[in-house]
């Protein structure tokens, strides 16, 4: 990541040697250079003044919101534009070497500060004790791989990262394909599947209590739908969320319910970006709808399927809110890795263990990343 900072500034020193062409051209160049340098300076000053204004707590709310919108939305694009202008003023042989770093630079800077730095911080803490003061070697990692509850959480998470993406992507793809063929009501149908995405994770867990809620006989009537059905059928109500190991599946249902909308929207966008000509040509050649789907649609959107699957695997790996809000993970055997991490970090206040669990989470994603890198190269080779 270090390359981002160094490269663009290396170009700035070169500015000085160019105006030796002399005469008219030299002056023109100097004016342009000054102009171009002034643009980012003015931009930064303007942004800074507006930030100061936004900090002022007495200011009118609506005005603050308005300025926030203009600065936040317009400011960023202006920054790129200005940086690009500066690059244009570099001698030609440096220009195209520097420009990519102008395009990716802001990304790398922000990520370094907000994500890479915390990761390094966590790595350090993972070798330290509960208060993060003295080093304890691999003690925390030993805990991660020996503690019963931790081992259960690893087993459960393995289930999450297989089952949730499998169902989420399959249903999402099927629905995107089918909805695409509706004569009317595609937007409505898709919106209804997408609806759960508009609910927060914590909200969804609460929503599902209206489904899974359990009250033993004599403790009031059951307000959960599943037990309502059980009672209606003359059966005993079932404590769904305590049924090991099936309760894990019941929790996964919540995530599938929420995330299928994501898969569906992204896959639908990919399906719709397949040029009509290709599909029509196949149909004219007599391909059946199933053949069109398997031979054209699937291969064309395969990169998107990979992306969606990867994202859902990572999300399943990170799942925390659902298990946490439903509660009593340890008693029910529904622990997952991220939930353990939060528990040790924030509730049991053992920084070292929490950090070690986070590092395990981080390492678990490496195979997925290698798979992605391979796809990334393949895509470049074939386009």
């Amino acid at each position, binding site marked *: 990541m270090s390359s981002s900072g160094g490269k663009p500034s290396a170009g700035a020193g070169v500015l000085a040697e160019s105006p030796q062409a002399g005469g008219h051209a030299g002056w023109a160049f100097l004016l342009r250079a000054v102009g171009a340098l002034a643009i980012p300076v003015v931009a930064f000053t303007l942004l800074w003044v507006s930030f100061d204004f936004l900090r002022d707590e007495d200011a009118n709310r609506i005005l603050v919101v308005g300025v926030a919108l203009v600065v936040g939305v317009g400011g960023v694009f202006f920054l790129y534009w200005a940086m690009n202008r500066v690059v244009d003023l570099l001698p030609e042989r440096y220009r195209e070497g520097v420009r990519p770093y102008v395009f990716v630079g802001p*990304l790398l800077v922000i990520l370094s*500060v907000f994500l890479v730095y*915390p990761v390094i911080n966590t790595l350090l803490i993972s070798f330290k004790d509960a208060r993060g003061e003295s080093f304890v070697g691999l003690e925390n990692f030993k805990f991660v791989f020996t503690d019963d509850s931790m081992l259960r959480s690893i087993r459960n998470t393995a289930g999450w990262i297989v089952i949730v993406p499998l169902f989420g992507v399959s249903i999402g793809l*099927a629905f995107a394909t089918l909805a695409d063929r509706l004569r009317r009501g595609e937007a409505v149908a898709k919106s*209804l599947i997408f609806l759960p995405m508009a609910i927060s994770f914590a909200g969804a867990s609460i929503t599902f209590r209206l489904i899974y809620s359990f009250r033993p006989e004599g403790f009031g009537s059951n307000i959960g739908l599943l037990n309502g059905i059980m009672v209606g059928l003359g059966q005993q109500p079932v404590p769904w969320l305590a049924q090991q190991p099936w309760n894990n599946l019941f929790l996964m249902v919540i995530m599938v319910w929420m995330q299928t909308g994501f898969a569906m929207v992204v896959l639908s966008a990919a399906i719709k970006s397949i*040029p009509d000509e290709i599909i029509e040509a196949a149909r004219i050649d007599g391909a059946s709808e199933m053949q069109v789907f398997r031979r054209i649609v699937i291969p064309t959107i395969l990169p998107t399927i990979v992306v969606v699957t990867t994202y859902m695997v990572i999300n399943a790996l990170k799942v925390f809110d659902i298990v946490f809000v439903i509660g009593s993970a340890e008693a029910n055997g529904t622990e997952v890795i991220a939930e353990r991490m939060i528990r040790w970090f924030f509730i049991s206040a053992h920084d070292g263990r929490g950090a070690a669990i*986070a590092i395990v989470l981080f390492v678990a994603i490496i195979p997925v990343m290698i798979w992605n890198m391979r796809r990334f190269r393949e895509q470049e080779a074939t386009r």
Partner: protein
Amino acid sequence: MSAAEARGVGESHRGGWIVRLTVLLIVLIWLIPTAGVLITSFRPEALVDSSGWWTALAHPFDAAGWTIENYRLALDTGGFENAFLNSLAVAIPSTVIPITIAAFAAYAFSWMEFRGRYLLFVAVVGLLVVPLQMALIPILRLYTSGATLFGLKLFPDLDLVGTFLGVWLAHTAFGLPLATYLLRNYIGSLPSSIIESAKIDGADHFTIFWRLVVPLSVPALAAFAIFQFLWVWNDLLVAYVFLGGTKEVQVLTLALANLVGARGENWHLLTAAAFISMSLPLAVFFSLQKYFVRGLTAGAVKG
């Protein structure tokens, strides 16, 4: 959809009743939990706790079984207008900034040559896995006191806590890995012939990006915009940590959480509050829906 009809192709591939039935079935299954929330939000408090929400469907015209009191109560608590404005001021820049940054980066990762682009891209995607909760405390420390290493000031003390900028930057950082990943996938799959011919016509990278790639990527941009907006809108943790919980700066989720927290875990209020906060994201989704139209790239490629 009108766009689909305008294509004027044969109707043979159009779904028959099987397709319609399957779609209907999936939609119905998906609606059950939401229906539970919606119905509960319109039922009186006493009934919510004593009978299942589906029983309300048995006698839908019984006026005693329905009420809008829950919504009135949820909205009457005050401070909602302000919270709504704050949520907008947080959510819109927190959606647009990461999209802009990620789109530029995705273009560079797809169509520009530079050292380490594979590695950098994979590193960016790898950051998807960083749990948000893990990053909050180090970032908060950066905001309040900067960072020093061996007496060297690495990161200035910007005093960003409680500012909109602080929240935007945090949301931007948390949204960037996914945005870059999704957009690189989409932008990287554009046909190289388009980019090449623009280069031959003398367009520089900035022009190609702005005039060609961005318009062609509207479906992907719109899709990501929706997710990021939803995520920011529903977020409670980031806004609470970086913006604070006072009445002036609180966002909608926080206002709702306070409402529920102040009155215990009340189903009738909780469900009404959930629907209030869902209304805007759904409006956004409906309004961006029209960008998911087939054939945006059609005709751009010759041969």
